[in-house]
């Protein structure tokens, strides 16, 4: 599967204060998937939750993707993502039930799936997805956080939010219930776009304007951009684990059109 339409870089750092890194990241450029998770739970359970999330997610996406490609119905990338996220959710939930040390563990998730000149965005919690397009950075997700709710309900103004101590309190997460309804939607992905996935360890400490400047100026060297983003978060305190994934669309990526032969053989296989 050709992946040269996507250039990626990812970095996850424990930060300056925490003892353990409970963030996890995973990129499968062949598949067109990037995933980032910020785990939570007593005593390192967060590490387990976020690692299970990205591992199960990528495995599930791989197996569902094959089914996606061989089905002769309309492609349904959103359902592929939804099913995969739910599979990851169940895996974390079951692990939490099975071990007392993992009880109550959960994780945020930010996922991008690039398919057929479009992107599916999946997220839950306060990890974020931005898109840089035409030198302008836009936030594509809305945080599931107490602070966000306070702002939406008019309890706190956006300027006051900077003084709130509720930044890292998320209202929704993976792994805490047997089923989950993540935020899912499709959006455009054009050549030149750079998608930025990050945990709140970055967005809480580095202003959007600075994220925009770093990604825009250094898009020809994504690894350096990722490094400088993490470094900026740590220079501004580094109070939490900080993770970032950058994914740049190099050229158009239409889904391969199934030949008539493939369609016929798929039909034949199913009717047996």
């Amino acid at each position, binding site marked *: 599967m050709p992946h040269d339409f996507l250039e990626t870089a990812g970095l996850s750092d424990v930060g300056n204060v925490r003892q353990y890194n409970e963030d996890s990241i995973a990129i499968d450029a062949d598949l067109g998937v990037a995933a980032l998770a910020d785990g939570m739970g007593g005593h390192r359970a967060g590490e387990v939750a976020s690692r299970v999330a990205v591992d199960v997610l990528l495995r599930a996406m791989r197996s569902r993707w094959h089914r996606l490609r061989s089905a002769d119905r309309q492609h349904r990338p959103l359902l592929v993502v939804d099913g995969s996220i739910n599979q990851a959710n169940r895996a974390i939930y079951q692990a939490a039930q099975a071990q007392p040390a993992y009880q109550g563990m959960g994780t945020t998730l930010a996922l991008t799936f690039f398919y057929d000149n479009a992107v599916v965005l999946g997220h839950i919690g306060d990890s974020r997805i931005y898109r840089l397009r035409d030198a302008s950075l836009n936030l594509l997700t809305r945080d599931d956080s107490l602070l966000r709710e306070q702002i939406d309900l008019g309890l706190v103004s956006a300027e006051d939010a900077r003084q709130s101590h509720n930044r890292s*309190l998320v*209202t929704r997460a993976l792994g805490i219930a047997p089923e989950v*309804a993540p935020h899912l939607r499709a959006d455009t992905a054009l050549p030149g776009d750079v998608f930025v996935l990050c945990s709140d360890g970055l967005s809480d400490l580095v202003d*959007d304007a600075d994220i925009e400047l770093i990604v825009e100026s250094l898009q020809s060297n994504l690894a*350096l951009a990722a490094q*400088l983003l993490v470094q900026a978060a740590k220079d501004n305190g580094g109070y939490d684990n900080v993770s970032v994934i950058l994914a740049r669309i190099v050229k158009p990526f239409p889904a391969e059109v199934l030949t008539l032969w493939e369609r016929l053989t798929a039909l034949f296989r199913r009717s047996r």
Partner: protein
Amino acid sequence: MAKLVLSAQGAVVQQCFVDRDRLTIGRDAHNAIVIDDPSVSREHAQITRVGNDHILEDLRSANGTYVNGEQMPRRILQHGDVMQFGAFHLRYLNPRAASEADFERTMLIEGIAGDSSARTAVKLAEAQSDGIGARAPRTRLPTGRVKVLAGPDAERVVELDRVIATFGRRGADLAVIVRRPQGYFLAHVEGAHLPLVNGSELQSQALALRSGDVIDVGDQRLEFVADGAT
């Protein structure tokens, strides 16, 4: 636990812990904090807890609620804030709130609207979002600038007042100067030629710049100038 200290003319009158989700302040005896002052309304203000925040709100009092000398109808209380009620001062103390690290750990909390965990249909709603901005950083940063000595844009002075500044040309030779608390650093971004610093090729990933350094990148020659002692 957060604490409130009430004082008048420098003498402490009352201290209490903020140990409930809502407490009121006013002249009436039923308030958690009773302030016996004619300019204070019977129920003057309230402090409510939302997550890790204590939010002070004026309850449409006759004379308003003041924090640190400014009239504010609503305020997310910060450690050390002083509220004024007539001749009285009420100080909010929450050292844990002042120590940033504690509140950065991602934790799950029940939403205000009471989130149910039942599964809902997959939504394809458009999500326009204004991000909640980053916290104001408390680090001190150096100041400096770059003078273009030769090449395109000669004579131009570029103030280094943002986290990064790039020099050279994209798709050709590009270098970046990074502004950090400990100083300015030069790094190579892209291009076949590494930048030169005082005539020598950049050897390391990032080089700490000293005031007076001359940098060659692409067809530009630059002089780096730092303010203050380097």
